[in-house]
């Protein structure tokens, strides 16, 4: 979707303003927000793609005025409600009022090191051979899907070159919507800044994305 998250090349947000010796957390609630998000995700009831899509579906004004942990929590409420684990009444009262289904898993403290060390690999075998090879010229799709996609707007309808064939990966555009993993080959595709930004682009700059095969056509 053309949501507020798709920020590449937008202007007017002001300086990056890196904070010297920045702490990992700026408030105690941020620690709990991280932990609640990860432990709720560990129930296994939704995918990372669905959670990303829940974040980018925040209203643009809300997204842009929220810190990242705020975005996480707002999206987590959406996911928990959507999957029936939390009700509007629960949230209104700040305690468990309605019952919830049994989740696939509950992450216990003693399993945290192993679960974090294992992560959630997203590479999958793909039956078909890779359509493109290193050095191929490709053109990215011009599309504006209303659902989740990982092809940023600035990189749509652009000519680029395949720099690497990565591996087969879960396809987020379907997986975010419960329509299956449908793994595809992923490629590193590099673009000149002139191709993306046109007039006045930095001649020393190239930008690459990791693109799923169906985002690409032969150029």
């Amino acid at each position, binding site marked *: 979707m053309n949501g507020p998250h*798709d*920020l*590449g090349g*937008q202007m007017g*947000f002001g300086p*990056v303003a*890196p*904070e010297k010796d*920045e702490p*990992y*957390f*700026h*408030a105690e*609630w941020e*620690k709990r*927000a*991280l*932990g609640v998000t990860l432990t*709720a995700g560990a*129930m296994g009831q939704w995918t990372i793609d669905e959670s990303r899509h829940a974040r980018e579906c925040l209203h643009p004004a809300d997204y*842009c005025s*929220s810190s*990242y942990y705020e975005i996480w*929590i707002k999206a*987590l409420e959406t996911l928990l409600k959507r999957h029936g*684990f*939390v009700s509007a009444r629960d*949230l209104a009262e*700040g305690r*468990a009022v309605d*019952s*919830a289904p049994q989740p696939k898993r*509950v*992450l*216990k*403290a003693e*399993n*945290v090191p192993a679960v*974090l060390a294992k*992560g*959630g*690999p*997203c590479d999958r075998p793909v039956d078909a051979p890779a359509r493109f090879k290193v050095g191929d010229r490709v053109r990215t799709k011009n599309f504006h899907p209303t659902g989740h996609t*990982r*092809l*940023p707007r*600035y*990189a749509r309808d652009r000519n680029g070159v395949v720099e690497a064939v*990565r591996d087969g990966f*879960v396809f987020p555009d379907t997986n975010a919507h419960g329509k299956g993993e449908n793994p595809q080959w*992923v490629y590193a595709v590099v673009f000149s800044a002139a191709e*993306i*930004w046109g007039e006045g682009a*930095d001649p*020393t700059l190239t*930008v*690459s*994305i*990791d*693109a799923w095969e169906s985002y690409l056509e032969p150029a």
Partner: protein
Amino acid sequence: MRASAARPRFRRMPHDHDHHHDNELDPMAARVKALETILTQKGLIDPAAIDAIVETYETKVGPRNGAKVVAKAWSDPAYAEWLKKDATAAIASLGFTGRQGEHMQSVFNTPDTHNLVVCTLCSCYPWSVLGLPPVWYKSPPYRSKAVIDPRGVLSEFGVSLPAETKIRVWDSTAELRYLVVPLRPKGTEGWSEERLAELVTRDSMIGTGLALEPQAA
């Protein structure tokens, strides 16, 4: 709880105003506490697991991991080759695996080319080697600007590259996570990996910084 005036996160935070709340929780603190309470009461999460997660990312997983990888790559050509070809395995060999580091890719700076990593669409970041991302990495100013004006971004970090240096920006749009291997500073011949690792900053592994010069470490 009071929002720090020095906090450089994205502006116009709903709660960035300058007074204390003595008898109430910050609205976000209350919201997160309520969510944790509800999920705990329903038996869906274990609050002790949250403590364990926080402890992991406060004390165990951070940019010192990545610094060890870079220092080894500087010291050991065979390891550097492995890191180029199969970063996931080469990094795992040092014990750094896991969440948001499942599929690693290393990108080596050269005298001609400087690499910079961003996630324009969300906040993808190599947790297993760099830990949790800083606020600026996740915020709109960096995510919007890095792909169109990386030299402007670098100048904010005090980095000025020669005009002819090529800049390569890696937008982490898929599940690959990028680790920049900065150039090894001159004057560090014969240094141990431990000593070299002290020159490797978090920002130098994102590409918004360079490795420290020996006299600055």
